[in-house]
């Protein structure tokens, strides 16, 4: 694989008021790579993920996706925040899957999936529907086009949410604890879909507590603590032979 960097975070800081939540994060993710972010609750994983598609502003540092700085325009030594419209345009190529699915409850499964492509990318409705049906088949939900989200199980809803993200043909998908809100018996079906995506070469950054998934699917695992990445490397190293005390403590609690 050629090392073609897709995401580059450089010295990312984020404060909410006086509280510094991210304290200088550096991370490079190659195209086609799957990186899992582990860490205790409150360590800043979600915040970092939300910075990558500019749902949060940065206090310092920069994040590139592709050749563009996310959310800002650099002019000399200054970064000017983009307008809402420009930021929205950047987000088209960055998918996101949420812990609580966040499907649009007033729309059917099909409408959920085609909304972005039709409204934002101006894809023809017929074409978007055809693509949506393909994606539904891919996540194992063929024929559920006309169900409403509330009629589906959590695992099915999350798979629809994944199809919704894929419909925008993103170059990167961010997953924020996609299985944490699911009943244990439904976790597997969502992870299976994600494994399939990873194999297909999609670039993924996955916040998860599923160590098994990280071990099997991730190219690299990053462990976050207190707003910093304290350890990063191949899963066998980070999970099998952790160096940092915090990683050791965390893993001993999870297993």
């Amino acid at each position: 694989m050629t090392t073609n960097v897709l995401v580059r975070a450089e010295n990312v800081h984020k404060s909410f008021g006086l509280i510094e939540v991210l304290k200088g994060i550096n991370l490079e993710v190659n195209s086609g790579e799957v990186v899992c972010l582990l860490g205790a609750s409150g360590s800043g994983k979600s915040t970092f993920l939300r910075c990558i598609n500019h749902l949060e502003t940065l206090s310092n540092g920069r994040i590139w996706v592709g050749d563009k700085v996310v959310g800002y325009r650099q002019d000399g030594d200054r970064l000017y925040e983009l307008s809402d419209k420009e930021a929205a345009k950047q987000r088209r190529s960055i998918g996101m899957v949420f812990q609580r699915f966040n499907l649009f409850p007033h729309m059917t499964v099909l409408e959920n999936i085609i909304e972005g492509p039709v409204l934002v990318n101006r894809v023809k409705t017929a074409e978007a529907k055809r693509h949506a049906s393909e994606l539904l088949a891919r996540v194992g939900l063929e024929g559920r086009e006309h169900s409403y989200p509330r009629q589906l199980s959590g695992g099915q809803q999350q798979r629809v949410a994944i199809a919704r993200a894929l419909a925008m043909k993103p170059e990167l998908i961010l997953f924020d604890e996609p299985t944490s809100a699911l009943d244990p018996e439904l976790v597997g079906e969502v992870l299976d879909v994600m494994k399939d995506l990873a194999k297909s070469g999609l670039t993924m950054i996955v916040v998860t507590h599923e160590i098994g998934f990280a071990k099997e699917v991730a190219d690299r695992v990053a462990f976050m603590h207190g707003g910093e990445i304290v350890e990063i490397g191949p899963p066998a190293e980070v999970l099998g032979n952790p160096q940092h005390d915090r990683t050791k403590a965390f893993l001993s609690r999870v297993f």
Partner: protein
Amino acid sequence: MNTQTEPNVTGAASVDLKIVPRRHIGRWVGAAAVVLLLVWLGVSFSRAKIDWPTVQEYLTVPVLIQGIGVALLLTAVAMALGLILGVVSAVMRLSKNPVVSGVAWLYIWVFRGTPVYLQLLMWFNLALIFPVIGIPGLYSGRMIDVLTPFVAASIGLGLNQGAYTSEVVRGGILSVDEGQTEAAQAVGMTRLQAMRRIVLPQAMRVIIPPVGNEVIGMLKTTSLASAIGVSEILSEAQHIYYVNNRIMELLIVCAVWYLGAVSVLSIGQFYLERYFAKGSSSRQLPLTPFQRLKSIFGTNRKALS
């Protein structure tokens, strides 16, 4: 009923027992009492000094039908204006820009804080302080020509309504989970697109019932417009009874027309609510009146109770 004393549950369960739903005796007794009361009321009114033929005669008088038409038209125009202003000012109030939200706050403060009657009078008399109206170079005219009673009433009632609707809409928007906006933004929508396509349709479920009430309230409030010379039904009725002195008869005619109009509006509201409830739950769509009647008096087990 199973009268067996032995705890042989499996044996009893295999028998197909007919399930008899609860009989609603109280409802039948209550309904009978109400019917009696209505009959009594009906009898007393028919014996009162009301000339029913006059009522019947005036029920179809063109000026009165026109009058209720004007009331309905004014309701529609003022409500449309109120809804637009309400949605816009609610979105403005939720803006992060303090100037934008401040302007919306000021609008609500002024128009909710003064009586609508006073506001109507002010709009109607605007010509006293601004005799001419116009856009420099494009148009100019006399204020009294532009601000006819109907226009003044539409603006006055609409602006007042907007201030109230704004708060209703704001509550509706706030009732929608923040995650919905984020999910919409994550597929590349702007905040405004997310508001229009994702948040507002869901907020509608919360917004429609109170706005429906306000439409009905507005229909009745239009009678205030008679104060500035709008020929709606009540003022037309007054013109008639000043002459023929059939006061109660004409008021009853008005009441009948208002009730009829409100009933039609309520039906509209009902189906609108049903429409916006879609997706909220697969089973709990409100029942149509026919389904409801069946459930109240019938022994249908799937019904409400």
